[in-house]
């Protein structure tokens, strides 16, 4: 364990500025002079790697803080509202679930070729999808389906109303007969999300 790592861990996890004397208690190799040297080393690492944070001297101690130039980013994050529109990846996954429900994360990732848990999280937060069942197989993966809110939002009375023209991509067509339907664990039909 390197001294820079120890000092970094402490500066990261502490809720108040730490003095050189505080930091020196962490390891017998440290005293106030070496702490100063270690802090300098960390500073130049952060500069070289262009980290978004730096070590500042506050109230006689050291503290990790974001660099001033990122204030605008944080400000933007603060002020830009959660978009009224779904991102392209979110739309794609929603379409897949709408037509192939109940559908598991692994199948979605297989079709899309990228990790998709982040997108699923967005759709779950938006209450457009919910977990409706557990699939077969090891770990009994969670399967997703659309919610009542999904139907309401897009103006469908039921899932039967979803247009299913012939040009619907093969992967979105309903699974072939013979595949066992998964056991439904949530109360109600897939279109009725559990109260969670």
């Amino acid at each position, binding site marked *: 364990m390197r001294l820079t790592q120890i000092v970094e861990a402490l500066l990261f996890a502490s809720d108040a500025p730490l003095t050189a004397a505080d930091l020196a208690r962490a390891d017998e190799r440290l005293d106030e002079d070496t702490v100063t040297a270690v802090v300098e080393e960390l500073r130049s690492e952060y500069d070289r790697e262009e980290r978004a944070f730096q070590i500042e001297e506050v109230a006689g101690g050291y503290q990790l803080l974001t660099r001033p130039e990122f204030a605008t980013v944080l400000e933007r994050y603060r002020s830009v*509202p959660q978009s009224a529109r779904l991102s392209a990846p979110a739309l*794609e996954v929603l379409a897949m679930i709408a*037509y192939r429900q109940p559908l598991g994360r692994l199948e979605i990732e297989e079709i899309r*070729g990228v990790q998709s848990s982040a997108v699923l999280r967005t759709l779950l937060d938006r209450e457009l999808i919910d977990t409706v069942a557990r699939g077969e197989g090891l770990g009994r993966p969670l399967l997703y389906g659309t919610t009542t809110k999904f139907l309401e*939002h897009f103006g469908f009375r039921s899932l039967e109303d979803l247009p299913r023209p012939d040009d619907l*991509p093969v992967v979105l067509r309903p699974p072939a007969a013979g595949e066992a339907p998964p056991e439904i664990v949530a109360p109600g039909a897939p279109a009725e999300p559990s109260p969670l």
Partner: protein
Amino acid sequence: MVDVNTSDVDEGVFVVEVERFTGPLDLLLHLIREQDIDIFDIPIAQITAQFLAAIEGIERYGLDRAGEFLETAALLVRIKAQMVLPVQRAGEGEVWEDPRAELVRRLLEYEHFREVALRLEQAEAQRRLRHARGFVPPPPPRPVVLELEMAWDDVWAAALAVGERARPRPEHHVRLRAVPLEDKIGLIVQALKRIARIEFSRLVQPFGDKLHGVVTLLAGLELAKRRELVMRQRKPFTQLWFYKRKDETEGKDETDDAADANR
């Protein structure tokens, strides 16, 4: 049988002992596990006596939960009474119901959650090893979430695009090779012809594939249902064993010893 060290300690110490348990089911499970008793075949008279001894004086010491322990004690006594009644050999189609069945079900359900609680405790300990940032400037107010403004056309367009991307890559569609249940049943039956019992892991290990594990387990359950073998596990998370089923059940312990001697 193991003495549950109740009679030789004074009652004061004893109530503290009972207090250590989160409830009567916890105490019961403790008695069963401590003495390595098969939960599916609980010697009810023995356990009842030990349970009663364990909660003796519980009222006198004013334990709030006395009622809860006494309720379970009453249940045990009732089951014990039912067990000594002559078993009515039921006519065709009727199944004799073990008076212990409901208790076993409750104990297993409770133990299941005890195990989960144990895993949660481990997860908590793991999480406590990692620290989030200690000092964070005042958090930004959570921004407003706007009403969703997407139209179905957007979803529809996305749906069509899925096809365009997915169609040229059917080779990525990995299909698991089927593992026939009958193969695994055969494997287990063959193994149990040679030896009296076999570890689940030994049956699965040569294949190194989760699907094989699942199917082997299903095969075991199927054979258990057909009464061709018996699955046993002494304690949670220990080895699962498949036992050849003997016609005479009392030969079981000898089978155990023989198998141990073979190892």
